């Protein structure tokens, strides 16, 4: 199997970081424009796929350790559950930060308007927590699937195929 040509590998190398910034923009502006936590997390996870195509598998496995992404994923899920428990005075998942000033608390005028970034209460915090979890989870799936293929090649004793060099 031939490795992909130099043009594809150079473009993937340049555009991987652009995907990272675009995904973080979609996650943070989740309460103003369509998007939010899950969609932005899936866009950032394609950054790992681009880096895998452009640099080859052996270099990626020495650069990105699975423990780092696993830590990001568990941190995101723990922040999500803690934010739910903090508003336990009224109900579970009560929005106790909206419309009261302070962190994420500005009041939004009624009717169509241009968005205010500081506005929604716990919705913004939960957006970012879910975004972190999806980034960690999907990147971990990609890395382990690639490790599984290399396991199979080492068993049959073949030489390195694909994009490795």
């Amino acid at each position, binding site marked *: 199997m031939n490795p992909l040509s130099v043009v594809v590998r150079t473009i993937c190398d340049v555009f991987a970081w652009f995907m990272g910034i675009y995904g973080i923009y979609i996650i943070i502006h*989740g*309460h*103003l*424009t*369509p998007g*939010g936590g899950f969609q932005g997390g899936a866009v950032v996870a394609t950054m790992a796929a681009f880096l895998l195509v452009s640099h080859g598998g052996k270099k990626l496995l020495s650069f990105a350790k699975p423990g780092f992404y696993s830590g990001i*994923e568990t941190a995101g*899920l723990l922040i*999500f*559950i803690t934010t*739910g428990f903090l508003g336990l005075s009224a109900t*579970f*998942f009560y*929005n106790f930060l*909206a*419309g009261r000033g302070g962190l994420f608390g*500005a*009041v*939004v005028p*009624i009717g169509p*308007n241009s*968005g205010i970034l500081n*506005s*929604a*209460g*716990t*919705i913004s915090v*939960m*957006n970012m927590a*879910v975004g972190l*979890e*999806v980034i960690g*989870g999907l990147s*971990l*799936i990609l890395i*382990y*699937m690639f*490790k*599984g293929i290399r*396991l199979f090649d080492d068993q049959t004793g073949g030489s390195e195929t694909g994009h490795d060099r």
Partner: protein
Amino acid sequence: MKKKVLFLIAILVVAGVFWGALSRVHPFGEKARAPMDDYYLENAQQERSVNNVVTAIVFDYRGFDTLGEAAVLFTAVCSVLALFRKGSEGK
């Protein structure tokens, strides 16, 4: 070869029955009676101070479903990790 053609005709007949039944329930595009969604559209901006009604429904009015979905994602990642372990197959 004959079994394939028979299965194909059966699938087309079932699809036609579904289409005919669903298009007679409610005319497409008219104002369906949905009192819960009207409440969401009118009061979400005043109570929760957020501009995006879909995000308010997913994270605030129905936040419990999002908790269940995050758990499903976590479980799927854990089981994929458990399938690709080396050293436990072959003595």
